[in-house]
């Protein structure tokens, strides 16, 4: 049992001032942080509640169709937003999978990113949606592609005193679709044994114009399948293409044996999940 102090802040400046202490931690939904601190898996002398900062609670689609999700927006608001659900289905797949209903009432995408679990469901989904993170810190603001955010289990590129402000997701491209699938032994309330997110766009002829594939729980961080584009671009989507992408996912995966699954099973699962996510994403295109 660790004790700590608690402070609620209402501006980014206040938050940054509080987070200047090396033992301070930002509190969003708390669904990861609170049990981790209680069990001594994370240290904190000061917990800075950032939910009172209006910018962190924004959920907006701008005139260009880009989505901004404040880092402290609870998941149920994300998947409960009809326009978000319609335009960014892969993200909604992931947001509605994290924890049970009561966890989703509190947990945030920002928290899922900052926990930086190799199995964090939102991360592969955000990667394939091309999302970018807005971060504020002592040196000002910067933006980081989600694909570059995690650098190891529980580790991100966030520097000392930096705070994740928002997630920006670009407007979906025309004739595009996305899906995120994970495998768990139960049907809810589990951590992904393996996962795969696929986003793709077709050109006017129905050939693949863009494709992104990202995997979860098969490496120390989410893994982008770099070969996907070479395998698919310019070709008509097919079951054979799905199989090739699945094989590429298996090749890219670097899983380990742990309490949640075996490396062998995970290698197999990313193949299956990538094939299925590809077909689901394709199916979702107009």
């Amino acid at each position, binding site marked *: 049992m660790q004790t700590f*102090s*608690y402070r609620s802040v209402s501006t980014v400046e206040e938050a940054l001032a509080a987070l200047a202490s090396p033992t301070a931690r930002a*509190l969003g939904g*708390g669904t990861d942080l609170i049990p981790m601190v*209680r069990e001594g898996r994370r240290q904190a002398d000061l*917990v800075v509640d950032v939910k009172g900062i209006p910018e962190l609670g924004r959920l907006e689609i701008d005139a260009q169709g880009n989505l901004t999700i404040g880092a402290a927006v609870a998941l149920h608001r994300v998947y409960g937003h009809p326009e978000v659900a319609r335009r960014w289905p892969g993200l909604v797949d992931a947001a509605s999978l994290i924890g049970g209903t*009561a966890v989703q009432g509190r947990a945030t995408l920002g928290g899922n990113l900052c926990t930086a679990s190799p199995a964090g469901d939102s991360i592969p989904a955000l990667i394939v949606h091309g999302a970018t993170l807005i971060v504020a810190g002592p040196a000002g603001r910067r933006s980081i592609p989600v694909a570059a955010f995690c650098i190891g289990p529980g580790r991100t590129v966030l520097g000392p005193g930096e705070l994740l402000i928002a997630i920006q997701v670009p407007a979906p491209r025309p004739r595009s679709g996305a899906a995120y699938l994970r495998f768990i032994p139960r*049907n*809810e*309330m589990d951590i992904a044994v393996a996962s795969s997110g696929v986003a793709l766009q077709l050109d006017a002829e129905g050939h693949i114009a863009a494709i992104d594939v990202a995997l979860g729980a098969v490496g120390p961080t989410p893994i982008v399948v770099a070969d996907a584009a070479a395998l698919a671009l310019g070709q008509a989507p097919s079951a054979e293409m799905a199989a090739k992408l699945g094989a590429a996912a298996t090749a890219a995966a670097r899983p380990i044996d742990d309490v949640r699954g075996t490396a062998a099973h995970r290698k197999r699962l990313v193949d299956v999940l990538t094939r299925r996510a590809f077909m689901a994403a394709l199916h979702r295109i107009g």
Partner: protein
Amino acid sequence: MSTLAVTTTLNGETVTFLCEPHETLLTALRDRLMLTGTKEGCSNGNCGACNVILDGTLVNSCLVLAAEVDGHQITTIEGIAGPNGLHPLQTSFLENAALQCGICTPGFIVASKALLDKNPQPTEREVRHWLAGNLCRCTGYDKIVRAVLEAASAGATKE
């Protein structure tokens, strides 16, 4: 670290209580406010026994700091029944024998109320999905799901 004073609307009444900054809402409810109907099953958000409704949203009170609820509204199992008697969900749980040992029951009833407030006519699949964060080890869920469906068809949200 210093003791905090938290003021909240709890089951419709304004309440002020003292707590330590690291205390969870679950601990505050049970040990400070003596509302022990909210149960602790895992303290990790994996069983739902501590479910409460916070500003209209279902949450695990073990994953919320007591300090976070200052100025917010909370409904616990003790606030589900109205002045005129049991909530239709409570009646339906009794009539459907939807509890055995009863330890998970407060969490299930609170979670089910949050469901019906949002979706008054859920399907069986929707009920099962919504309640997947609530573990019951006695019933196999069959009678719980039936109780929620029956309460919904009887118009539980009118209460």
